């Protein structure tokens, strides 16, 4: 498995580290954990975890995970994938899984571009940023992922950068213990591709941006959680209780079977 395929300065190793630590700290039986990923650099993460794991087609990780969780509710099902995978090609699956409140945890590595294909712009690329397909600067408005997740119905929403490893690990632990659809966005450095084109050539340059710009605003309005060169609003934004799809399904099934017994 090792060495891994990720570039020097990439944030994916940090995310993997935080995820594995969260599982260890909680003492979760790793025989009952399924790690699901989509396509892209972070998509390869499922190959580095010693859990059951599955590397799906581009954009379909959440839909696959929905099938796993509903078929075998005792499993912990975690999706770890990228911003392009989860929010461009897979955007529809994200909003509907959040709406349904499927009991899965989604961790998104947001590196602002399609790294694996060499740095094209995506749904999170900031305005004016340079990528190989925005050679005159990006003219598309990016998604605010935490706002999208909150509006779609997620019960737990947080955003950290790969600089904030302790808080990120704590939030993954929190998400793993929540019932329902939880979402954690991790702003992750891509110095080899995105950084190179945007005046942050090393991992340190990108981490310095995170350090200078990050501003913890716990439980602030996710609609205002901006990401600009000057300011990256991070923290926990949503932590609410709502019955999960799985629980409602279980209740309904129990009622149907009860009725059948009465009819007999």
């Amino acid at each position, binding site marked *: *498995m090792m060495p891994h395929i990720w570039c020097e300065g990439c944030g994916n190793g940090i995310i993997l580290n935080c995820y594995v630590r969260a599982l260890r700290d909680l003492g979760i039986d*790793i*025989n*009952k954990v*399924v790690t*699901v990923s989509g396509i892209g650099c972070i998509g*390869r993460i*499922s*190959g580095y975890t*010693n*859990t*059951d*794991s*599955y*590397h*799906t*087609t581009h*954009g*379909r990780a959440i*839909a*696959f*995970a*929905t*099938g*796993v*969780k*509903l*078929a*075998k509710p*005792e*499993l912990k099902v975690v999706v770890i994938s990228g911003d392009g995978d989860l929010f461009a090609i897979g955007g*529809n*699956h994200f909003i*509907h899984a959040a709406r349904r409140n499927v009991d899965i945890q989604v961790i998104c590595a947001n590196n602002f571009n399609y790294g694996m294909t060499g740095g094209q712009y995506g749904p999170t690329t900031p305005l004016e940023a340079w990528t190989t397909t925005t050679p005159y600067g990006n003219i598309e408005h990016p998604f605010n992922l935490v706002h999208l997740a909150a509006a779609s119905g997620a019960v737990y929403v947080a955003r950290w950068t790969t600089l904030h490893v302790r808080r990120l690990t704590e939030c993954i632990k929190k998400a793993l213990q929540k019932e329902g659809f939880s979402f954690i966005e991790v702003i992750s450095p891509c110095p080899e591709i995105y950084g190179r084109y945007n005046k942050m050539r090393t991992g340190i340059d990108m981490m310095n941006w995170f350090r200078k710009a990050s501003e913890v605003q716990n439980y602030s309005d996710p609609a205002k959680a901006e990401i600009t060169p000057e300011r990256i609003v991070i923290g926990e934004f949503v932590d609410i209780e709502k019955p999960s799809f799985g629980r409602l*399904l279980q209740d*309904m*099934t129990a009622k*149907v*079977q009860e009725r*059948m017994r009465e009819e007999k």
Partner: protein
Amino acid sequence: MQGDIACAEGAIAAGCRFFAGYPITPATEIAERMARRLPEVGGVYVQMEDELASMAAVIGASYAGVKSMTATSGPGFSLMVENIGLAFMTETPCVIVNVMRGGPSTGQPTKSGQQDVMQAKWGSHGDYEIIALAPSSVQEAFDLTVQAFNLSETYRTPVVVLADEIVGHMWERVTIPKADEIRVVNRKKPQVSPSEYAPFRPDEDLVPPMACFGEGYRFYATGLTHDESGLPRTSSAEAQQKLVQRLCDKIRKNADKIIKTEGTMLEDAEVAVVAYGITSRSALSAVRKAREAGIKAGLLRLVTLWPFPTKQVSQVAKKVDAIVVLEMNYGQIVREVERAAKETPVIFLPKLGEEPHKPSEVLWGVRGALQ
């Protein structure tokens, strides 16, 4: 019972306990039946946001150890082929029902067609083999759905039931056997410890035993080219050749066990009609009429469409003077028949639109073939 409902009941009888789908005419009745029936038997029905998601969820549920299916029609099937490729690559037992309507594009949603036959075989990218079965009656909608699950579990592969709108929507008498009289096959499980388990190491039949999520094997599966351990081998020509060949050979080398055809009055036939699905009903009627008129006609009904019954068609072709092929499309399976028939002339009767061929039209074709 209606064809779509018989299909749903066949799935439940085969042990299907997970359905993910998206409403589409003329397959919606399957989803509706499953939504009502699955909770009664402790299963799960989920209506996904589209057919891309439906197929992905079906694969997920199957990897979680639950027999799973979806049902759709042409436009939805077009979206599903992406993950049918993934199901093939990761050797996922699952069943996809395509109740065919008229295409291309939105086409004729409420009218019958047999226009997705080649798509079922070639729809996803890359080399792959599919198993596809074509029911011609409501009874067969039940029986072949059971069979589809059994084949998918036996060979760890997606299986397509290629029904059509008429079979899906017509009402006929169905005999549902008692549960203990229905043959149900379950995927073979690993006989080794987790540390010795390689998720894609095949047995002699080329099929690897399947561990499922949560059983302690902690394995990895990917749509990337992989070795027997499941790990990606994206740069190895040898790994690509070994994997793709085995996945295809798993079906090709077991074709004799998979393929089912039905011959009627073929023993002394001078002309053979080849048909499948609803058109085989017209064909049978036409063959009987031909016999009454003193014409030695017979019928070869293709129950299995993929892998294509090349051997069976060839054997018939050797004995007859001509073959007549009926399809509710503008020429699909006929190409396979021509390939198998070799020197024997093949006359094709296409039919587009609502109705299958009238027996009189088939008879006209049969007479023409003998001239």
